[in-house]
């Protein structure tokens, strides 16, 4: 049996009390996910039905001002649309006609709900059905909500993937489905490791193109690669697929545990598992130990952002020698992050939701060596002398699985190394 991560002797955090506060939340809305989803699904267009604020968010949030004609856009609601709803549906038809006439490369169109479209109860599922009929078979039209009143940051991806599950064709084939949008390089590494163990066929959601042969059924087992996919998890189970619960594949330990959980479903022997993983495990350990030198014994404080917080706290405390002071997450889904909570030693405050002012008070009082937070808070905290890591980079950068484990540690150590490098005072 491969050596597997041990549960901390004092017990994990799964049953620890969770601090829940209600106040201002400093988080993105789910629309932000479009920034990476539209890169991942190469024949998809994301049409937000919203306000100028939505369009402004998409262009500012990630700082990804690509300024080409991207595969996302906003149908901005105007005064006239707000007057009567029948009108808004016709208007939407017009916008979509225009769009699809110009972009014949589009095979999947996502109508994305926003705060204003939900408040006026604009029925996008009806619109999507109507349009699917109209444009079949060349374009499939789906809808999901990325609104701030429904979703937080990475939940936008969850909502998008969950919307795709019901329309997947049925298959009885025994297969493995990897769920979550990963950078291509990471996805290929994961698939290759699993294939070397003799596991297959392997499918991924989201597929890069609409015409992939992805199906789903009772013989499908699935593993999540991202911890924010709660609705997708539920949608897949409704289709009869079986979830493989596992810690998330961050760091050497997380990756090994995740791979082992998948391998067990496919009766992979210990010898095979070791043959495939021994070399990359050793590389990952080495890379982490180098990259984490400046992290050992240092404290870390997580503001809620991407929902990666719990698995990352597990990685930083167990593999990089850090002490977690507070681990905040927008919300905690124990069915999904349970295995990570089991491995996270008791000690840190676990918090769910946010009152940002109170949380900032706690953070400033604790003076952590590193604070993981959103872009709105990073510079103000730096100005207070606290080193920060922007959380959004963790979503955009390849950080999963063995070969990126060192890079992941490096993302956290860089701000601290930098603080040590800068000499901005007189030499004396």
């Amino acid at each position: 049996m491969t050596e597997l991560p041990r549960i901390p002797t004092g017990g994990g955090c799964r049953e620890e009390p969770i601090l829940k506060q209600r106040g201002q939340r400093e988080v993105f809305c789910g629309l932000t996910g479009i920034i990476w989803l539209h890169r991942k699904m190469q024949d998809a267009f994301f049409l937000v039905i919203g306000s100028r604020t939505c369009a402004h968010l998409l262009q500012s949030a990630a700082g990804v001002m690509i300024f080409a004609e991207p595969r996302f856009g906003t149908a901005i609601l105007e005064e006239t649309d707000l007057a009567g709803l029948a009108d808004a549906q016709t208007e939407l038809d017009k916008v979509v006609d225009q769009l699809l006439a110009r972009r014949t490369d589009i095979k999947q169109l996502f109508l994305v709900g926003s705060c204003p479209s939900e408040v006026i109860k604009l029925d996008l599922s009806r619109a999507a059905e109507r349009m699917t009929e109209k444009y079949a078979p060349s374009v499939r039209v789906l809808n999901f909500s990325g609104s701030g009143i429904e979703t937080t940051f990475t939940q936008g991806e969850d909502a998008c993937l969950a919307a795709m599950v019901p329309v997947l064709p049925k298959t009885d084939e025994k297969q493995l489905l990897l769920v979550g949008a990963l950078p291509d390089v990471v996805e290929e590494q994961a698939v290759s490791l699993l294939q070397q163990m003799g596991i297959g066929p392997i499918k991924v959601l989201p597929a890069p193109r609409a015409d992939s042969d992805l199906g789903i059924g009772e013989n499908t087992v699935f593993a999540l690669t991202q911890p924010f996919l709660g609705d997708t998890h539920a949608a897949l189970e409704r289709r009869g697929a079986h979830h493989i619960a596992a810690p998330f594949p961050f760091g050497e330990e997380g990756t090994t545990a995740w791979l082992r959980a998948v391998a067990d479903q496919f009766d992979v022997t210990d010898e095979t598992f070791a043959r495939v993983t021994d070399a990359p495990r050793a590389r990952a350990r080495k890379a982490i130990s180098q990259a984490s030198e400046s992290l050992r014994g240092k404290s870390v404080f997580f503001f809620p952002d991407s929902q990666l917080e719990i698995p990352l706290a597990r990685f930083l405390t167990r593999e990089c020698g850090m002490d977690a002071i507070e681990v905040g997450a927008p919300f905690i889904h124990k069915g999904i992050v349970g295995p990570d909570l089991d491995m996270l030693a008791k000690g840190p405050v676990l918090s769910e939701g946010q009152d940002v002012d109170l949380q900032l008070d706690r953070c400033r009082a604790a003076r952590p060596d590193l604070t993981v937070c959103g872009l709105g808070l990073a510079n103000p905290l730096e100005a207070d002398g606290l080193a920060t890591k922007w959380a959004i980079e963790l979503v955009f950068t390849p950080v999963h699985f063995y070969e990126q484990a060192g890079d992941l540690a490096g993302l956290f150590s860089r701000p601290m190394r930098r603080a040590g490098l800068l000499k901005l005072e007189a030499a004396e």
Partner: protein
Amino acid sequence: MKLTVWTYEGPPHVGAMRVATGMKGLHYVLHAPQGDTYADLLFTMIERRDHRPPVTYTTFQARDLGADTANLFKQSLQEAYDRFQPEALIVGASCTAELIQDDPGGMSETMGIPVPVIPLELPSYQRKENFGADETFFQIVRALAKPMEKTKRITCNLIGPTALGFRHRDDITELTGLLSDMGISVNAVAPMSSTPSDIARLGQAHFNVLMYPETAETAARWMERELDQPFTKTVPIGVGATRDFVAEVASIAGVAPYLDDSRLRLPWYSKSVDSTYLTGKRVFLFGDGTHVLAAARVARDEMGFEVVGLGCYNREMARSVREMARDYGVEALITDDYLEVERRIEELQPEMILGTQMERHIGKRLGIPCAVISAPVHVQDFPARYSPQMGVEGANVIFDTWVHPLVMGLEEHLLHMFRDDFEFNDAAGASHHGGHAPKPQTAEGGQPPAPAAPPPEFEGKMTAESGSSVTIVWLEDAERELKKIPFFVRGKARRNTETFASERGVEEISVDTLYEAKAHYAR
């Protein structure tokens, strides 16, 4: 419903945030869903501010909608007051909160907050960011400023600068010095750097300097009427405008005009022989109305460029931009549709663009140099060095900034002479830009906030289309000859030749056609 890809202006509450964040001692309570807090990063990341914007968002969620969002607003307002103890508050709604009609203004009146609470009505589905800033500043001034005795010395207020403004920080410094040279001191700068009590004493000044009509014209007009303060109409960007501004200030203030131009270098730099190559460079201008109007004058009268097109994205300035366009014999483009601007630039094939960060990207794609003259801003528009647009130093900065993207005088000739040299060729771009400046087929992933984005790919459709229905074919040697023309004029040469050919019904372009066209368009 209008399909929008990129936007020049944010929603009006972002304009209100620009006012609030520029000020001190003021707090903004914004009724808004979670997610709208993204706007904080505009200030903390793009402008590198070391404090959070003074904004409290109610961040309501779906479950609050069924319950009591109004109470949530009241609670947020009370807590914001208790925590931040501001001298005054502004309250309002973002686009979504506008729909649920909780009336933040009305609620706040009933709460007995012991400092002024100024309600904002910013119609999110009709207006945009500049309106939001202008209206917010106006409401604050109207609520707080009172007629008062004028100062003994001649003083003025500098009005208009906000957070996230294009070079506002340095323009303030430049104008303060310029006015001081005329014996005029600054009573207050607002909204930037003012507290609510500074706003209350705006009336002490003898007149107002309206720096940016986009953000303070309504307040300037109100103060003219109510506080008996005339305001300046000239925006001192460029040499001529700065001199006009000095004359205007002198006549308003009743002092002698004076401008210390000992450090003004633009006029001589522009006359010096190296600048000959700037002559008649065809430029296209786009941005906010104020900066475009000023830049057009500098471009034509002070740099010797030819203005081939101009426009602005803020409809509020449409009239004056149209007037100027008529004066310059070109058609004004008034639009906030980025794709329309791109189309116009493709049509006009200018040799240089003076625009915003959006036009800079258009320029990258089309291989046309671009200098940035206006908001919307980017982290690059907040340089560490002193870099105003206004006054004497502003003129110097403009000269350098506009010349920098261009291939310089003799280098232009050398590129032409040694066009097949393996290092020194047109694809290598201008030598002072290090590496390869124009790579028309790559878009860029932008600066921070977020590095390491998934690699952006270019997805536009930039196939050159000639305006006529006749298909024009380039013969092989003509195509080869065209390639010998330096890249920075090749697009224009191709377009001119095709227009020339199609006007004459010529379907095949030969080397002769190319040179006939060249002779035809020779200036």
